[in-house]
């Protein structure tokens, strides 16, 4: 197939391969380079965040505080949460979306390529600045990734540059980057679609990105504003959030959660989009209820804007507000349920291929069920009042952010690895990675649910010995999860160097990105495609790609 020699046809291929790696360290305006830059950078932060998590689990393997002292422990969980949310999942999603959205829409690039590069290059300084706070005399921020005042305003006397200050400045930089990115994504999806690419021919992944980025635009300014006010309180002596000086810390919670609950959907929606791409491809079925799933993405956006108070049911919140937000929070289960039913129906009566991306997608979708069901439980006020701020929340949250979203991210990496790199990954290593991750993740996060029910409070560095059993399981699971990343790294590096050359469409998938070469040329397509087909036309014999059984053998 032509894809094998595509690099030689590319307009940029004259300087390759010697300059190939260098462009990933350059201020490139190519959405594919920027996408890879985002993904690689966020993965490095994921490793750092994971290392911090393992230190936390090392501390919690015994009831006493005996590994790290308490201020350091507080810094560890603060930065673990911050890194995983703001430097791993959100930027990785921005990266994979950057890479795929123009390809899926049949566009040559994002709407504003220069802005795209600026948006990326704001993040490494923000991230490095955040990590540099470990070197300060009194270390990093220690008030948790919520940074609730007034505790976040308790700083070492005489140290204007402190961990909290650095934390706020870093997050403001990263937040501005995300807002810029959101403008670019929304504009691209509205205005850069190829001829014939109507909204209801767009892949669900693009719908998901559109929905997530709309949430960024609407909600993120609230967090950025809250952080700037917090910075004023911290450094300039203002009193917005100081309760003993006429300020109101509860207002901060409203502003914070107005963004930070929808942030879960900003992270989850692209993951749902990934499931919608991978499951049909490896089931050989059209995506069941495509229109419902596409519209459900927008449904999640609308409902999720009105749910933030469920994080504040115990924050001296009046009853009417508790009841109202209980109902709205539960209603999120409807569009997310539509998605979960759609995925399952897609798999039903299909022809399943259990390659690594499919394993990660099915595993992630299955574990989302537990994350989603516990989410509905938490929306019920009387139950939430009991488990609020306990490990039940931590377990639920990690079932979403790790067991669903990070699993989806791995599904995406394996699924689009041939397209991005032009190489195939090693299937055996991929499957080993999946099983270690799946087992490790459940061992780590499931014990948190019974611990929370029993009343183990989150963020404590030592605990009652009666909680030790489940904590040992969680810690051992956490270490296994740490180890699980090694076959992944070995696979990616080994496949990049020695992997078999990939064909244009190794999975026989539909979608415009599979019609171009692997990797795609500078401008994505030889000619801008004209779209005449519905998405996910796996079941339509008119369009289905049916290749001879020796297809792979011929190409490899």
């Amino acid at each position: 197939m032509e894809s094998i020699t595509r690099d030689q046809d590319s307009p940029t291929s004259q300087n390759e391969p010697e300059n190939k790696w260098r462009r990933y360290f350059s201020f490139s305006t190519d959405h594919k380079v920027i996408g890879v830059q985002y993904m690689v950078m966020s993965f490095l932060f994921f490793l750092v965040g994971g290392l911090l998590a393992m230190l936390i689990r090392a501390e919690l393997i015994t009831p006493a505080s005996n590994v790290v002292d308490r201020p350091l422990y507080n810094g560890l969980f603060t930065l673990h949460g911050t890194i995983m949310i703001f430097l791993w999942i959100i930027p990785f999603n921005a990266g994979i979306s950057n890479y795929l959205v123009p390809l899926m829409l049949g566009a040559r690039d994002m709407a504003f390529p220069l802005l795209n590069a600026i948006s990326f290059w704001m993040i490494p300084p923000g991230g490095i600045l955040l990590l540099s706070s470990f070197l300060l005399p009194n270390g990093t921020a220690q008030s948790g990734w919520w940074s609730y005042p007034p505790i976040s305003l308790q700083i070492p006397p005489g140290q204007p540059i402190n961990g909290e200050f650095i934390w706020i400045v870093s997050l403001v930089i990263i937040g501005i980057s995300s807002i810029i990115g959101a403008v670019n994504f929304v504009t691209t999806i509205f205005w850069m679609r190829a001829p014939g690419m109507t909204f209801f021919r767009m892949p669900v992944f693009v719908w998901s990105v559109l929905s997530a980025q709309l949430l960024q635009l609407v909600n993120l300014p609230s967090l950025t504003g809250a952080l700037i006010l917090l910075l004023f309180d911290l450094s300039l002596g203002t009193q917005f959030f100081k309760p003993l000086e006429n300020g109101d810390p509860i207002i901060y919670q409203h502003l914070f959660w107005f963004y930070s609950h929808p942030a879960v959907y900003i992270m989850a929606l692209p993951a749902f989009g990934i499931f919608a791409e991978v499951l049909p491809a490896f089931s050989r079925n059209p995506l069941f209820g495509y229109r419902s799933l596409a519209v459900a993405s927008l449904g999640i956006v609308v409902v999720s804007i009105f749910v933030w108070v469920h994080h504040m049911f115990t924050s001296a919140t009046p009853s009417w507000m508790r009841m109202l937000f209980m109902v709205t929070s539960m209603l999120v289960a409807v569009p997310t349920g539509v998605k979960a039913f759609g995925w399952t129906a897609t798999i039903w009566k299909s022809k399943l291929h259990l390659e690594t991306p499919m394993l990660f997608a099915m595993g992630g979708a299955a574990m989302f069920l537990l994350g989603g069901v516990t989410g509905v439980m938490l929306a019920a006020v009387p139950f939430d009042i009991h488990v609020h701020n306990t490990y039940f929340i931590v377990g639920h949250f990690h079932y979403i952010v790790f067991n669903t979203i990070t699993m989806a991210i791995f599904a995406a990496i394996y699924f689009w690895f041939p397209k991005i790199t032009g190489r195939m990954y090693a299937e055996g290593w991929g499957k080993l990675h999946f099983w270690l991750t799946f087992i490790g993740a459940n061992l780590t996060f499931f014990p948190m649910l019974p611990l929370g029910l029993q009343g183990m409070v989150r963020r404590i560095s030592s605990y009652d010995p009666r909680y030790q059993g489940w904590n040992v399981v969680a810690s051992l699971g956490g270490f296994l999860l740490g180890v699980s990343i090694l076959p992944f790294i070995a696979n990616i590096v080994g496949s990049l160097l020695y992997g078999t050359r990939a064909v244009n469409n190794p999975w026989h998938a539909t979608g415009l990105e599979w019609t171009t070469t692997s990797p795609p040329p500078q401008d994505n397509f030889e000619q801008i495609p004209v779209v005449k087909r519905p998405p996910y036309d796996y079941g339509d014999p008119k369009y289905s790609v049916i290749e001879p059984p020796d297809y792979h053998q011929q190409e490899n």
Partner: protein
Amino acid sequence: MVRFWEYLLIAGLIAVLLVVSHWIGQQAYAWMPLEATAEAQKVDDLFSFLVSIGAFIILGLVAMMVYSILFFRAPKYDYSEGHPSRGDLKLEILWTAIPTLLVLWIAFQGFNIYQQLDVLGLRQIVHLHTPLESQPAYAIATGEKPKPAAETIEVFVKQWDWSFRYPNNVTSNELHLPVNLRTRLNMHAKDVLHSFYVPEFRLQQYIVPGRDIDLVVTPTRTGKYKLKDALFSGTYFALMDANVQVESLEQYNQWLTTAEQEPTTIKNQAVAEYTQPPKTLFKSGWYTVAPNQTAIAQNAVP
């Protein structure tokens, strides 16, 4: 005919799932701590109900996935289509309508149980502040009148201890509560946000500096419990515990009399740790808010 058997099989599976889910829901009571208040039983009922519904959904969908993995595998290199079905409007309406009704039902149950809890009375909850005023103005939220109670205990929390003041002005670091009596806890935080939480009571409430917050509780089981600070409050957060003793009214009154004559002193764990060099493997020596000097001096007394 084949379709008939298929429907029959599905109906049978749903029946089995209902039985299994109900059984799991009944087990859920055992996953919770002891029920020590009138409110705890109601919360556990709600939890059991939620677990039953959750188990039905999870088991149903996971069973479909596992069944697919076992029986719908494609032969290697067979990339032909599975089936051409793109959707089914009736099915999609059904699986949108059912969760909608289900969550409304759950919300209704949650509302009912919340009404029965009747534990919270928030005073001065709405904090109105205009730049022209030097003092904050407060308004009482409608419907948030303090609930009637037989006894009122003042609760004070600060970095790093809890203290309780009883009707006879006795102050202690232990919370004593009479059983089967509605007691109002009038809570005050002195520095940062804290959260009052006794897992056996199934109650949790943030305490905001500058606000009076009432929590009315009716313990129903005598025994010793642990009060925890559930909201992260700084360096020694993990040590922000206090003993809670629920006892008969006679024992409670007797304790009040004894404590008035002979105040009890309980060693403060945070102070003990602060005054000792850290025993951990890694020592950062980063900044912490210190316990006050009085607390350190009191703890130094053997």
